[in-house]
Structure formats: C-alpha cells, structure tokens
C-alpha cells in the first residue's frame, strides 16, 4: 500500500538536493580557485566561477618543479599511484594466500596463526608509528617504495573478508577438485580465484583509496622529494611563512590529489559499497 505523502516526497527531494549541493560546494570553490591567477584570487574573496588561468595553472604544476616541494606534481601523483597500487595489490595477494591456508588446510598452530593475524585488526599504524619508524630505518627502507608500502600491508582486514567468503564455498567443490586430481595450487588458480573476483574488486577499491589517502606514515618516512606523495605535499604548499599562500596552486594540487580515488569510487561504486559493508562486518 501507498502510505507515503507526496508533499513529504517533495520535501525529501529538496533536502537531498540541498545536502548534495552543500557537500559539493567546498570542491566547487576549490576548483574555481584553481583556475584563477594568484593576483586575481587575492583581488577579492574566493571566486564563485571559473577563471581563465586554469590550463596554465595545471600545466605549470604538472611540468615545472614547484617551489617548496623540489619536484613537480606529476611525480607526486606517480608516487601516490605506486604506493596505492602497491598497498592494494600487495595486501590482496598476501591475504588471498593466507586466507586460503587458514580455510582449506589443517596444520599445527593453525589457530595461533589465525589469532596472530587477526589481532592486527585492533591497532592501526598510527598507534605504533615510532617503533615502526625505527624498524623501517633499521631495514634501510626510509625514502623507498617498499618502506611506504610494507608497514601498511601489515593488517588483516582483507584476510578477514576473504576468509569469510571462502567459508561459504561448498565443500563439494574441494572434493570434486581432489577427485579430478587437482592439487592445491591448481584449485587456487582455476577455481578459487575466479570465484573470488567480485570480492577482490571490492577489496581493491577500499585498499586503493586507503593507500592513496595515507598521510602520517608517508609524512614520517619521506624526506626526499622523489618519494613524496601528493596528499602529503599539500601541507608543504600551505607552509609559506609570512608570504601569501599560493591558493591557486594549493587548490589545483588538492583537485589532482582527489581525482584518482574519487574516480575509482565512482566507476566501481557497486564494488565499493559491497567492500565497505563487508570489510567492516
């Protein structure tokens, strides 16, 4: 039965439209600011509409070394991409194997391994930054891609999700594979991986965004501009001492920094919602 009132529907649409607009407003204003020259920008308050310096602003940031950073923004984007992909792919790869072992094999200390991995769910890297920094320094991994990636892979979210999924796979499949003479590697490659495709896609979206948006860890271990990520660079652009903040550069870099993860979330929305709801369960 229809028990909703049309007047209320209109109010709901209105509220949602206002909500969407308000959430979009900060991004719009950053975008318009990024298309003005600095002198234009400081002539008045933040402009509501785009200016004519957009192309030159973005082209300059991408091609020329930015003062205060020592490198161009393209390099920063590449570093962020390496880190985000490294974290997403690395985490999925090791979790896939570990969850496979935990669900489909019986071996001594299996329960202990399980708990050793799952206890990591409790403590994010922010809590143990200092000692982790020392470990990474001892391993000579400061200012390197492995140093950026490996400590952030050390957590069990993906293992947990994949384990939950593997547990729903009917035992008959394993049995059939065994009868057909397929060993564990063959089973993994030909049966389990194809079945896990949507779960892997969901994890990829979550982990890519997680990796791209990391702040504290890359801030600590990168002193060399060659390994600086775009998200971390923003603070350096803002720190100008007594000089005026070059807001056209800051907002343009912010737009570039949010581009890839926002694209991923919009293009893979279905997997994102699935991944979000299932990793947190």
């Amino acid at each position, binding site marked *: *039965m229809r*028990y*909703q009132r049309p007047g*209320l529907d209109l109010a*709901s649409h209105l*509220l*949602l439209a206002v*909500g*969407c607009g308000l*959430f*979009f407003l*900060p*991004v719009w*204003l950053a975008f318009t600011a990024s298309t003005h020259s600095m002198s234009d920008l*400081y002539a008045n*308050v*933040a402009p509501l509409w785009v200016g004519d310096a957009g192309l030159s602003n973005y082209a300059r940031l991408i091609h020329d070394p930015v003062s205060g950073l020592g490198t161009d923004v393209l390099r920063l984007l590449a570093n962020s991409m390496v880190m985000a992909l490294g974290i997403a792919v690395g985490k999925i790869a*090791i979790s896939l*194997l*570990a969850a*496979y*072992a*935990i669900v*489909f*094999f019986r071996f001594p200390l299996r329960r202990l391994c399980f708990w050793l*991995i799952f206890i990591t*769910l*409790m403590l*994010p890297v*922010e809590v143990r*930054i*200092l*000692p982790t920094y020392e*470990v990474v320094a001892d391993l000579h991994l400061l200012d390197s891609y492995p140093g950026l990636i*490996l400590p952030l892979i*050390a957590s*069990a979210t993906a293992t947990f999700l994949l384990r939950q999924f593997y547990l729903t796979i009917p*035992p008959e499949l394993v049995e059939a594979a*065994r009868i057909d003479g397929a060993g*564990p590697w063959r*089973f993994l490659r030909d049966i389990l991986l194809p079945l896990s495709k949507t779960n892997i896609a969901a994890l990829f979206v979550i982990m890519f*965004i997680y990796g791209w*948006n990391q*702040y504290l860890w890359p*801030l*600590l271990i990168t002193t060399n501009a060659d390994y600086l990520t775009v*998200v971390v660079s923003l603070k350096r652009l*803002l720190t100008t001492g007594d000089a005026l*903040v070059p807001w056209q550069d*800051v*907002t343009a870099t*912010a737009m570039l920094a949010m581009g890839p*993860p*926002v694209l*991923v*979330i*919009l293009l893979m*929305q279905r997997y994102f919602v699935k991944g*979000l*709801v299932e990793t947190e369960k």
Partner: protein
Amino acid sequence: MTHFQRYRFTPWLLMAPQLIIVGVFFFWPALQAVEQAFYVEDAFGLSRQFAGLANFVAVLQEPDYYQALGTTVVFSLSVALGAMAIALLLAVQADRVLKGANAYKTLLIWPYAVAPAVAGVLWLFLFDPTLGLVSAALKALGVDWNHNLDGSQALLLVILASIWKQMSYNFVFFLAGLQAIPKSLLEAAAIDGAGPWRRFWTVTFPLLSPTSFFLLVMNSVYAFFETFGTIDTVTGGGPGGATTTLVYKVYQDGFIGQDLGASAAQSVLLMILVGLLTLIQFRFVERRVQY
C-alpha cells in the same frame, strides 16, 4: 573431505608472506613500543635505563595530556554524532523517495574517497581569513573568524572538515540498514495510524540501533586516527594545543620533541584505549543493541 590433507609445507608457504610482514611490521614494533615505554633514554639515544612506570606516571601527571584527552573526547563525539546525524537524515530521505535513491547515493558517497588532508585543505580555503567565502560571510554577520588565533574556532573547523569527509561512510551503512527493514512493519504501523514522524521513532530508529552502535564505534576510531591528516594540514595541533588530540600528541612528543619514552608510554595507553573500544564493539554490538 573439505580440505587438503597430506600437504605439510604448502600451508606454511601460503601463510609465510603475511606472517613475515605482520611479524616484522606489526608485532616487532608493537612489542618495542611496550618495551620502550618502560625505559628512559638519554638525549642522544646512546644509553637507556629501566624506569618502571616512570614514563606513564610522567605522562599522566602532565596537564597537556589531559588537555589532549579532553580535546579528543570533544572532537570525537562531535565528529561521530554530527556525521551520523546528517547521514541518518539524508539516508532516511533517500530511502523514502522511491525514484532517484541510487543517483543520490552516487552524489553523496564520493567524499569517502577524499583524503582527510585534502578535506582539510578544502575547508581551510572556505574559512581562510582573507579569501574564504564562509569567513567573509561570517564577517558580514559580525563574527570575526580567525582559526589561527582562536582555539575553539580552530577545533570547530577540523570538526566540520572531518564530518564532511565521514558523512558518506555513515550514509552507506544507514541506507543499507534502512533498506533491510521489512516494509511490512512500517505498513502495519501506518495502518495503526502512526504518522511518518512516529513511525520513524518507534519502528525505524530502534531497528537501526545495531547499525548506529557499530557506526558510533567506527566513527570514534576514525576521529581518533584518520583525522591526523586533517588536523596537521588545517591547524598543526594549534593554536596553543587547542586541536592536539592524543594521536597528534604521540607524533609531536615522539617526532618533534624526540621524547621517546613519553611517546611510547602514550602509544601504549592509546593501544589500551583502542583495545577497549574494540572489545566493547565485539561484546555489545550483538548482545545489547538488539531488537
């Protein structure tokens, strides 16, 4: 047989990458943090002495620590409640309107993908004392906005930026929770004469309580840890420590102040705090908050 037998080395081979990474980058540092918390190191890091609980006592006697604790509580609660209230309001509307719910979802989830530091920059620009549109509007209303000088304005600014980023996460969960509520219950309530307002508070809201509780814990964890980027870009913990949360203080004392023992002791206290939060989540989510 539901699993592979007679493979003694394969499972270890499969587990090895994760066990090694977790061992080297999680357990080793975590144990070191615990150990370090009980030692005092000299200024050059050359020698150290066992100090028992001295580091903890020092931390707990420091007024700054309680200021950071207070800031963390205010900050976390404001972010959690603000982001949840807005998300619930919008999710209820999106669930009500039959047409366009998915379009609204697309238009509302993308802030999840924006880095906390980027969210900070966006909001910093809105409130910039010279250029910001909102600060200009506030000035017209007679409010003098300068978060570089005013501690509570600075705190409000990081709270707003954090709410903006976190709302979409809550929206996804609230919408999923709302869509899982059987429509027959709402129809029955409607037949009994309950209006939309009454239906929401007596049927929908209680049925959402597991989602809400889960989100409360997740939002607190978010406010604790992930907002570091927002705080660092927007205020750097200032002015006068007004936006220094517990996590920010670990960073300040450890990396900027180089006081390793104090920083480690704070890390351990934080671990205990987060451990408790997680425990509460596991214990109560399923038992207490039920329908």
